[in-house]
């Protein structure tokens, strides 16, 4: 693996499969009474969050702590886009504190890339979501969740599995990272959205696109619903929330057209009643809560592989 995880495109298939198998080992830890490994003892992980994201931050925090790393949470809300401290000065401060890894969430696309490549810090940089660009650990946890559910009936891989990603693809870092990673893992991705919410040039992403949710989901093995942010309402991307829900929301009627094994996913936080109805979110097909559990395991795997190097995740004789 590379030294940083900035984009899902940084991962080869081999890298990605290593993360998934490592995450699988990490996940089994969750079933043990003592959920902690000594792997990153003495290492420092900084969670540098320029945007509020409680769920992603606590997921990374739990992951680092279960690996025995020291965790510093640095909430720099306001960011350099307003009059606060610049990204550079924040980075230099963290460097001076001796961070081994910086997990960064930032509203500006490319901010993690700048952090990794401007010579400001020497530590590994993990992108925890940047603007409308990418969110690679989310894609890894999504792939991990799919792999656990769909892999056993598909030879242990996601090859040829049909994944529908539905909603605001234009502004979604989750969709970008998932499209890249799932393709690397051999899945067939279809992005479903109104034309206003598909990016220009999406035809070069190596994925299918569709404006018709009803035509896509009966063939899908997994359906991932994206959050529609309220502020998009004013952007004129679609006329009303009701019309969006009618055309692109997942409700009980649409869920009935899914294959028996098809799972329903959502990166959270959900807007119940908008892109997904409560009966779907709470149904047996929904793996939304499991995604959160898997998030910790995947982030443990990522931190371990970036910082722990070649040492195995467990010691000889350990029944992990």
């Amino acid at each position: 693996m590379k030294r940083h995880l900035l984009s899902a495109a940084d991962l080869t298939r081999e890298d990605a499969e290593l993360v998934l198998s490592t995450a699988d080992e990490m996940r089994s830890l969750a079933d043990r009474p003592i959920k902690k490994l000594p792997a990153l003892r003495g290492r420092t992980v900084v969670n540098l969050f320029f945007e509020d994201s409680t769920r992603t931050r606590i997921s990374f925090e739990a992951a680092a702590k279960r690996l025995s790393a020291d965790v510093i949470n640095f909430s720099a809300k306001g960011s350099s886009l307003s009059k606060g401290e610049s990204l550079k000065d924040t980075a230099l401060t963290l460097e001076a504190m001796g961070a081994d890894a910086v997990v960064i969430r930032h509203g500006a696309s490319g901010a993690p890339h700048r952090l990794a490549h401007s010579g400001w810090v020497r530590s590994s940089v993990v992108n925890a979501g940047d603007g409308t660009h990418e969110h690679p650990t989310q894609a890894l946890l999504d792939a991990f969740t799919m792999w656990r559910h769909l892999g056993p009936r598909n030879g242990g891989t996601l090859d040829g599995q049909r994944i529908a990603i539905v909603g605001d693809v234009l502004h979604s870092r989750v969709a970008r990272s998932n499209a890249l990673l799932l393709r690397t893992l051999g899945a067939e991705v279809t992005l479903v959205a109104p034309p206003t919410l598909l990016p220009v040039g999406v035809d070069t992403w190596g994925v299918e696109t569709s404006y018709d949710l009803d035509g896509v989901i009966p063939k899908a093995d997994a359906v991932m619903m994206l959050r529609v942010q309220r502020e998009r309402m004013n952007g004129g991307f679609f006329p009303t929330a009701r019309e969006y829900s009618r055309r692109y929301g997942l409700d009980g009627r649409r869920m009935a057209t899914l294959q028996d094994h098809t799972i329903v996913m959502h990166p959270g936080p959900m807007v119940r009643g908008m892109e997904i109805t409560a009966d779907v979110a709470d149904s047996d097909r929904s793996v939304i809560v499991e995604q959160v559990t898997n998030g910790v395991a995947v982030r443990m795997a990522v931190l371990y592989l970036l910082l722990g190097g070649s040492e195995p995740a467990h010691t000889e004789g350990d029944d992990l």
Partner: protein
Amino acid sequence: MTTHLIKGVSVLGGTPTDLVIRDGVIASGPAEGVEEVIEAEGLIALPGLVDLHTHLREPGREDAETVETGTQAAAIGGFTAVHAMANTEPVADTAGVVEQVWRLGREAGYCDVYPIGAVTVGLAGEKIAELGAMADSAARVRVFSDDGHCVSDPLLMRRALEYVKAFDGVIAQHSQEPRLTEGAQMNEGELSGRLGLAGWPAVAEEAIIARDCLLAAHVGSRLHVCHVSTAGSVELIRQAKEKGWNVTAEVTPHHLLLTDELAATYDPLYKVNPPLRSASDVEALRAGLADGTIDIVATDHAPHPHEDKDCEWAAAAFGMLGLETALSVVQQTMVDTGLLDWAGVAERMSYAPARIGRLADHGRPLEDGAPANIVLYDPKATRVVDGSETASLSRNTPYAGRELPGRVVATFLRGKATVLDGKLQ
């Protein structure tokens, strides 16, 4: 004033000859009383370059550039005249401000400074500024622009185009439909989608150009289109010219050389307005400049302090330096490719911009009796651009580390050497 003899220089790339500069003009007859001889074998003489689009930042942002440092950068780049854009603080929207900038230029003495007046008060796009007062001032403003902002209100644009006819002015439009570019960061295309940077569609430029060409034709006025960046814009301007409409256009050196691929570095040195476009746009711009559809090269020299570029992309300022590298970039993209000869370069970087700006003493052929505004250029030299060595106060050159052809050896402003042996005098 020193009498210079320039020996064996190739005027516009022609047969080597001698030029005498006496009393500030190009002199005929025998080289009597020569005090300084410049051996110029292998050098090309061009008329002093004229920039129609320069940001000198003074008054207001003297931390980025001053009239003095900006005109020093201009002289180093072979320019003898620059047009200073109006987006200063305070905005150059009154006779007082344009006269101040004009006077600062005269005091600096490296290059003539012709202030551009704002079209609207405070660049706010709401009320036409006192264009007549600026035209009648000591600065004799003829070019008006809200550059940085588009005069997007069609009625206001129509009125401005009409009004400046009274004093032979021209509206230099920054063509950017504001609603289509809200939050825009880079050229809209496959790459913007992948990088998650908000797209700046070509149509946002082209829609305004199309509208303005129609308006200029309707009211019979002069329109100048700033920094054309797309293939579609070139086509629209070509059509307007075919109809005989009074439309001129400029392209920047960076849009002739650089493409949007550079945004993949997320390095804000490559963040500029209008954005760097695709390779096919670059090709169309070069072709348009070669066939005269695009009349001139203008630098859009836009200095910014280091901290405004040493940050994340979205937080960074738009703009890049251009004065000191313009001629080299034009050589690389237009001359070395066979698209233009040196006479063509003189037309597009001196004669034509002086005509558009209505300058009498610049942009004249290097003939007897003409003001000695001359640049001596060595097209065979090469250099690797050092981003830390600029005459400009700012360092935001997109060419740092790049090898560029050519070197400005000397610049003369009315017979006075502002640059000799590549160094400021």
